[in-house]
């Protein structure tokens, strides 16, 4: 396992965000670009980790791929497993991965006029890349969730699976 310097990564990531900032006019476009960058990483991450960490097993179940993201991907990318994995209460096909402090956000501060922009969009892109290429198309976004008693808000990655995923699971009778 290769270790990468955190400060080198933080520097690279801040440059990535600044570069994209000069190319776009609004926040939504910036978020989309960060997500696209993460998507490319996610696609490769899935291929690499399944081969390296999990031997010869393919993930065909929803919970299987979610726990793969939550433990294996997080562990190898960020050095620890994600804080929690929850199932959404309102909709059947929504899941949330929460993290007290995302590694990519540690050295980033958001100015007040950027509103709800979250650089965790990069991580959301990684998760979307993994799920999409494993055959579970979804929409993944990153949100700040303020917590009482803590200065910095918690970050939640919201995963909403596409309709065809629910159909496929119903057809295969597994969940």
């Amino acid at each position, binding site marked *: 396992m290769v270790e990468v310097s955190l400060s080198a990564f933080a520097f690279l990531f801040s440059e990535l965000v600044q570069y994209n900032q000069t190319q776009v006019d609004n926040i939504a476009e910036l978020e989309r670009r960060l997500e696209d960058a993460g998507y490319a990483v996610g696609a490769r991450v899935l291929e690499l980790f399944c081969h390296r960490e999990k031997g*010869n*097993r393919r993930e065909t179940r929803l919970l299987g791929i979610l726990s793969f993201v939550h433990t294996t991907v997080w562990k190898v990318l960020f050095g620890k497993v994600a804080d929690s994995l929850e199932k959404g209460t309102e909709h059947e096909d929504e899941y949330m991965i929460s993290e007290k402090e995302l590694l990519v956000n540690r050295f980033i501060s958001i100015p007040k006029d950027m509103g709800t922009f979250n650089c965790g969009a990069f991580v959301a892109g990684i998760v979307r890349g993994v799920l999409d290429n494993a055959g579970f198309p979804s929409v993944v976004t990153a949100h700040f969730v303020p917590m009482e008693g803590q200065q910095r808000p918690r970050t939640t990655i919201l995963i909403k699976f596409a309709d065809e995923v629910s159909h496929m699971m119903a057809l295969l009778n597994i969940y």
Partner: protein
Amino acid sequence: MIVCVAVVGPQNNPLYLQSFTEADDALKLHHIVHCSLDVIEEKVNNPKKSGSTLSETFLGLLYPTENYKVYGYLTNTKVKLILVTTDLDVRDVDVRNFFRKFHAAYVDAVSNPFHVPGKKISSKTFSSRIGGIVKSFGPGSPP
């Protein structure tokens, strides 16, 4: 003796096709690879019928033609690796080893940030690695 290896993407688009023999018509080998895609689809979409587990990557012998045997392997991203060989007595463990090394080479080729997923793999390193793996294929090859 291995005659041909192929990498086919999730939408059945060919990503890499290499034949290792001058004797046979390259087009015929392409046709055989193409036909084997149907067998893979059938195996993947009907797990109960074929009886194999849904989450296994090695698909095994797909179908034997008159003088070829075709083996298949499915990665986690629905990318299919196909092997065509003329050997009559190929050991299962040799084929599994071969696919493991093939998969490792494929993963390295895809990790290239300049490689566009869905386009053909044009890396020379990948070609030379595949050539090396094919040469060392045979009874008694190291794991």
